[in-house]
């Protein structure tokens, strides 16, 4: 059970948060311009990396705001959190997991 650093409220228990899947997938400006395969990609296809994964979380039992997190899918450590609209921190600034 994580302690997650909410960018607005500070460190809080994981039970206060809900998960929102992969981050940085913008809804297409004009969905009509996409063919069916491209649209299916937008709707359903998500990365599943072994390593650092940018994902969305929401502080449901707190400020109710969405933010992004970088989580290492092997160590399960959350390496950074940042606000919506911000760029993810550069990898070399992260406190890397011990493996």
């Amino acid at each position, binding site marked *: 059970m994580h302690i997650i650093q909410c960018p607005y409220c500070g460190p809080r228990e994981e039970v206060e948060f809900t998960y929102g899947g992969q981050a940085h997938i913008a809804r297409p400006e004009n*969905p009509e311009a996409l063919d069916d395969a491209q649209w299916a990609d937008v709707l359903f296809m998500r990365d599943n990396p072994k390593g650092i994964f940018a994902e969305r979380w929401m502080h449901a039992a707190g400020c109710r705001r*969405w933010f992004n997190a970088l989580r290492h899918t092997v160590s399960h450590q959350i390496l950074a959190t940042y606000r919506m609209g911000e760029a993810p921190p550069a990898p070399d600034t992260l406190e890397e997991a011990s493996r």
Partner: protein
Amino acid sequence: MTGPDRLRDGGLIDRTKPVTFTWNGRVLGGYEGDTLASALLANGVHLVARSFKYRRPRGILGHGTEEPNAMVQTGDGNRTEPNPKATVVPLVEGLRAKSVNTAKGGPESDPRAGMGMLSRFMPAGFYYKMFHGSQTMWQRVWEPIIRQAAGWGTCPTEPDPDTYDHMNLHCDVLVVGGGPAGIAAAREAAKSGARVVLADEQERFGGRLLDRPRNLDGLPGHGWADREVAALAEEAEVTLLPRTTVFGYYDHNLLCALERRTDHLAEAPSHVTRQRLWHIRARRVVLATGAHERPLVFADNDRPGIMLASAVAAYVHRWAVLPGREAVVFTNNDGAWEAAHLLKKAGAPAVTIIDSRPKVSDALKRDAEQAGITVKTGHAVTGTRGGKRVTAALVQPVNADGTRVNGPAQTLACDLIATSGGWSPVVHLFSQSRGTLTYDDTWACFRPGVAVQPQASVGACNGTFGLAETLAEAAEAGVEAARAAGFETAAPAPAPSVEAPEATPPVPLWLVPADTAPGRGGKWFVDFQNDTTAADILLAVREGFESVEHVKRYTLAGFGTDQGKTANINALAILAGTLGRPIPEVGTTTFRAPYTPVTFGAMAGRNLGDRLEPQRLTNIHDRHVALRAAFEDVGQWKRPWYYPKAGEDMHAAVARECKATRDSVGVLDASTLGKIDIQGPDAAEFLNRVYTNAWTKLAVGRVRYGIMCGEDGMVFDDGTTARIDENRYLMTTTTGGAAHVMDHLEEYLQTEWPDLRVRLTSVTEQWATVAVAGPKALEVVKRVCPDDAMAPADFPFLSWKTATAAGIPARIFRISFTGELQYEINVPWHHGADLWDAVMEAGKDFDITPYGTETMHVLRAEKGFIITGQETDGTQTPFDLGMDWIVSKKKPDFIGRRSLFRPDMQRPDRKQLVGLKPEDPKVVLPEGTQIVEPGALNRPPPVPMLGFVTSSYHSPALESGFALALIAGGRDRLGETVEAALPSGPVTVRLHDPVFYDAEGARRDG
């Protein structure tokens, strides 16, 4: 009463406090400080169980949580507890315990003892093989046998009368395990002023210092432990948690522990909860969880009287019990020799050490011989004799690497075999914390490798087996933990002087040879609890299994209430040996929480019954109670379901409520509908994007119905939204969907359209709503709002206005979910009951009738109005529901548009919403009924399904049953008949327009 095998003196039991207990109906005696196991052994009871599969007699193997055999049933009635291990059940006055897994008469006589004879037919993977084999054999032969034999203890059938608590604790240093290592670490960490928690599963701190004679600072081990723990108890920031098993290690140093508060008391005080589940968040963790001894795997190594050497030592030293008089100690290491000395000192006349190593140290040998112990090195126990107790060991010379017997067997009479194959560090918590294990060739064990979380392992759980080395390592770790948690620390205090034998590694002997190979002759048990033998593992390898995880599942080694604490390492070493691979390459199975079983009561805590979930009540709730409403749960809300009058059942009440609403006037508490206040200059644009229809032209004062889809084009929720002001709207949602809709809208606003100037506020509990519906609704509303124009001519359908209702400022909406003339009056929440009273008073002359959700469902279904979640399950588009009109063809984009206009969404054979009318008006189809083509049920299966019933009721207005259903291509087939497949046979139904009542909509304006 002492029991025949109780020693005259010694032990950590309190001889001034005798205890009487019952075992399988026999009254026996013990002392305070005993466990059930030690008291049974003191009474000469070794046979305590029958094995799971072969029904073999089984005794007590260990003396703690590692015990695989001695599961018992304790207590009676609603306090009976299945499967605690006798080795950890504290002996209390009046304890009632019995064997599990035995037929009537206890383990002494088991009519199924002959199961062992069938063992040839029950190899590894027995279940899989039988499932794939003859169905008849499975159903007629194996399943009845297994059903009768299966299962250990019996669950109570009555609710648990005890109370359990959940506790939360933050600390700087959590020390798990209160043996010498844990005590030393906690002492050093506490000196810094850090908040230290020391948890141990036993009542008494000291760990293995209690089990063997050791001296520290000139004190006996338990005395040293008492002194140090007393000093810890003096520290203001230290929390001691005895009888507390830390069973799970989760992310960010969250550990969970089970504290047993009353099981060790004969009479539990009523104000003390039975158990506590602790959630402990620690800055640093020190694991000092010790090690478990491994049994040696030899033929017929499971008879009662065959025990772990460490357990034998503990029973003699700690509990003053002599578990055998003619003892054989069979070992591959020096440590077990201590058990032989303790037995001899305690008065066992004949003690023989059989050591598989060809050579041992001269000092070891000399001491043993001086003590009168017979020693045979280069020998092994290769078989045993006996029934309900071991009677003899077969002893044979073995070659240097322990792979072959080297000469003929001698029979050595005995009543006890103490066995030791070395030690396995308790790495369970470390491994749960996702630390990686490393194999230690010297000590033949897995120990912690690379840690992931901020923690340290010390002592035996770290593969550090010497007492002096353990104390030094633990003290360092205690200091370091406090320092890392942010406290100022000094060097550890000088270590206590230690008198203890030097710790030396074993010479691995994973599978003891015999004249025959495993699988012939005797049984080499690896996992006692699951009756897994070495032959089963060899068979699994022959059948192609290589992964340790697969072999575990195929042979069951490592499952059960002990989770293979004595079995796992032996099993994987035998697997590795058979595969010809090194042990670390084969690896361990995954260690999962919980370390030992946790009661459901502790997991539930106080979140039971009414405290399971919050109940949401409207401001009008008391009025419904006074009217004797039956309630139904809608989400967390309690909503009136129907209002039965004396003598009425639900059917009669609903028929009356329906008729009253259609003929005169009904009233509904609609306060639970979700309400979202939407404000901002871009509010209209926002609605345009989230609803499928157009919103920009809705005038202030008007109301519109809308449907929300997901990006996949499937209907997600529906409701009306009113334009309150230029930049302000009030959206309503379904009662159950309110939170989801709010989340959905917030997510888009925050993540996709942060540029939109819109704010959302949930106002569900700001407005109480009373819906007045029926031809007399206007008459009632006129009396409630005498100053406002309420007639449909002045106040058209799908509009709203402010008014004064019963003197309360109100918003009134002309919307209708019944098809009748309907007014929904909204007032500030705390005025809800006042408004209700005023409406009831005003309606008296018209016999105004409160109606519940069931009547609401019937009335709306007669009109073909959907309920999302009932007519929809996340796979219906607005087109499927016959609502093409609500999907804007002009808006360039809205949520779901791209998906809705895929050709596949327009397929004519998609399931479409239709009505169903049974030919027989008395029939009310069960919801969920499958619909098929006429005569389809007479043809051989599979029968193609056309669709299914989503809503079904009896309609008083139609004087018939009717239903809504989703039917493939149904809209083009209105008027045709199909069949509803009921268990009693097919029922003919006719496809109907979903609107059954007042199709022209004449009634909504009264």
